[in-house]
């Protein structure tokens, strides 16, 4: 039983983790950078320790300072949240060697899925199809051209160390391939410290379907259904929903197949704790493995709402050594949940980030509405971190019900002082194709190209 947990993160996910700990009667320790001194997670935690200046590299990414804080506060475990150090095997190892439990997969499991190329190889061994592509990294122009010729254009050039939608380029012919290959390598080196890239067939009209898994330390692994995250802008997710309209409307039997494939991959990696296995599904219902996210994800609430399972609580319990109390047959998906990410960005100005002080804040409520946020009236959003200020999750008895409720909730949402993407989310909710459930990852691009500005009202 953990007595104290340190939350090595900030913002809405830190608040989420602190709440889960409180419900388990576990004391919480927040760490914060100087600019986050008035942040909600600092106020909610039982104890708080300043770990550095605003820059993440000076604070939330400083393993030494986080461990020092953990020791000074005498914690039993650290929850890394998402991003930051959550998928850093070295950090997990340091925790282990300091006798602090890392709430997440083991360093060994992380290393088995260390980068995208390695994961592809593991998936293949587990008998799961991956998009046609290179075996491992592509190290020179000649190899790149040969691979592209073999699999056929269009192709994707992807950084092996990339994540969160970054480090990907499309090429439609030899010329763009060569140019993209070199640029991708340079960018990857700069952004991830690893220039390795691999090449994959680009699947037209792809649907991004991911499977939530939970694995305990006794070898039991279950899946909790899928989330459809195809609504993205520049590879950043905007809206997620469960179940996937594609699977519900067209490919009912696929859920079971993809779920089993996800479990096979997790078994091959000896995975423990919570994770998400990402797939691409094409219009014909073929599915291909993309990668494993070895952490709790931003959009986890959507799965929680349709399955009734508290995923962060499950993470903590698994880390405490408890066996999973539910079996695959106990997992039932009921109703429909949609999540809209709310970012402090100006949708009318190419989504430019809009940090600053929130003046008025009234968040939606009522039946079937869940807000996950750290924002409040008077809070100043710092410019140093990502622009997401909250997640609005809505549940309905079916998809239509959920969409109507999301419309109602977005209409109630009032934030002044900073620009937000609330109006843009409203435009998507009212889009006929989204409402029909007919969309793939190029949806947002098409919507912005069509510029249905009359549907987007500016809230003052």
């Amino acid at each position, binding site marked *: 039983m953990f007595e104290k947990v340190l939350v090595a993160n900030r913002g809405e996910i830190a608040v989420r983790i602190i709440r889960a700990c409180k419900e388990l009667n576990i004391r919480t320790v927040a760490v914060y950078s100087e600019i986050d001194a008035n942040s909600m997670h600092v106020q909610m935690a039982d104890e708080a320790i300043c770990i550095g200046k605003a820059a993440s590299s000076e604070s939330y990414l400083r393993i030494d300072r986080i461990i020092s804080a953990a020791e000074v506060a005498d914690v039993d475990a650290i929850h890394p949240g998402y991003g930051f150090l959550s998928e850093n095997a070295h950090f997990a190892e340091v925790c282990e060697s300091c006798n602090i439990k890392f709430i997440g997969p083991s360093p060994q499991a992380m290393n088995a899925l260390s980068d995208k190329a390695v994961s592809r190889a593991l998936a293949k061994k587990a008998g799961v199809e991956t998009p046609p592509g290179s075996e491992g990294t592509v190290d020179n122009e000649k190899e790149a051209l040969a691979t592209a010729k073999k699999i056929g254009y269009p192709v994707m050039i992807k950084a092996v160390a990339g994540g969160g939608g970054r480090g990907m380029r499309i090429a439609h012919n030899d010329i763009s391939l060569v140019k993209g290959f070199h640029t991708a390598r340079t960018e990857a080196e700069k952004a991830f410290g690893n220039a390795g890239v691999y090449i994959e067939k680009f699947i037209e009209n792809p649907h991004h379907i991911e499977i939530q898994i939970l694995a305990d330390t006794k070898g039991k692994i279950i899946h909790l259904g899928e989330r459809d995250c195809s609504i993205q802008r520049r590879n950043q997710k905007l809206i997620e929903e469960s179940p996937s309209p594609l699977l519900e409307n067209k490919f009912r039997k696929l859920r079971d197949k993809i779920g089993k494939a996800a479990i096979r991959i997790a078994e091959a990696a000896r995975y423990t704790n919570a994770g998400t296995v990402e797939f691409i599904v094409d219009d014909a219902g073929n599915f291909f493995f993309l990668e494993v996210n070895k952490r709790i994800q931003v959009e986890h609430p959507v799965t929680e709402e349709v399955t009734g399972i508290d995923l962060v609580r499950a993470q903590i319990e698994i880390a405490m050594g408890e066996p999973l109390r539910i079996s695959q047959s106990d997992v039932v998906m009921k109703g429909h949940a949609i999540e809209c990410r709310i970012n402090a960005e100006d949708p009318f100005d190419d989504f430019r980030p809009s940090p600053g002080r929130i003046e008025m804040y009234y968040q939606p409520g009522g039946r079937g509405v869940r807000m996950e946020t750290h924002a*409040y009236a008077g809070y100043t959003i710092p410019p140093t971190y990502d622009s997401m200020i909250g997640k609005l999750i809505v549940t309905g008895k079916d998809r239509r019900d959920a969409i109507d409720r999301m419309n109602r909730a977005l209409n109630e949402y009032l934030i002044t002082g900073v620009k937000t993407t609330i109006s843009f989310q409203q435009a998507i909710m009212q889009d006929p194709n989204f409402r029909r459930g007919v969309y793939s990852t190029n949806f947002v691009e098409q919507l912005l190209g069509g510029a249905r500005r009359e549907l987007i009202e500016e809230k003052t």
Partner: protein
Amino acid sequence: MDLKDIKAIIDLMKKNSITEFELEEKDSKLRLKRGLNGGAPVPQAVEDSNPLMPMPVQMAAPMLGGAPAAPAPNTGEIDIKSPMIGTFYRSPSPEAGPYLDVGSEVGPETVACIIEAMKVMNEIKAEVKGVVTQVLVENGKPVEFGQPLFKVRPS
């Protein structure tokens, strides 16, 4: 670093309303402060919250009582602040006397205290020249990043 660079940095600071700038290179360190308040930089503080939405949740006492300080009254004193998280010790060993007391003279290279983290004893240098006017933390207490440890009247 020459005067031209320093002037350029000062201009940038003025233009972007930056009040404090610190740059450490291999063989030199530059710290520039501007504005009326010579004390600790003030992180964004929430002043009056909207009366309709009172600040939710009572403030959890920051663990070490070392929450980023309100602007220090302009006495001209400088804080020696903790550069790390750990346990604060005033002397090199339990039997030895403290490194510093009120009235002690310090120079940039003077060891002010030890902060212990993960079983490693780190000597913390004063990095200022002057006389200690206050010892702010008790021996053996935990300290966090940026926490003021001593007040020094610079000379």
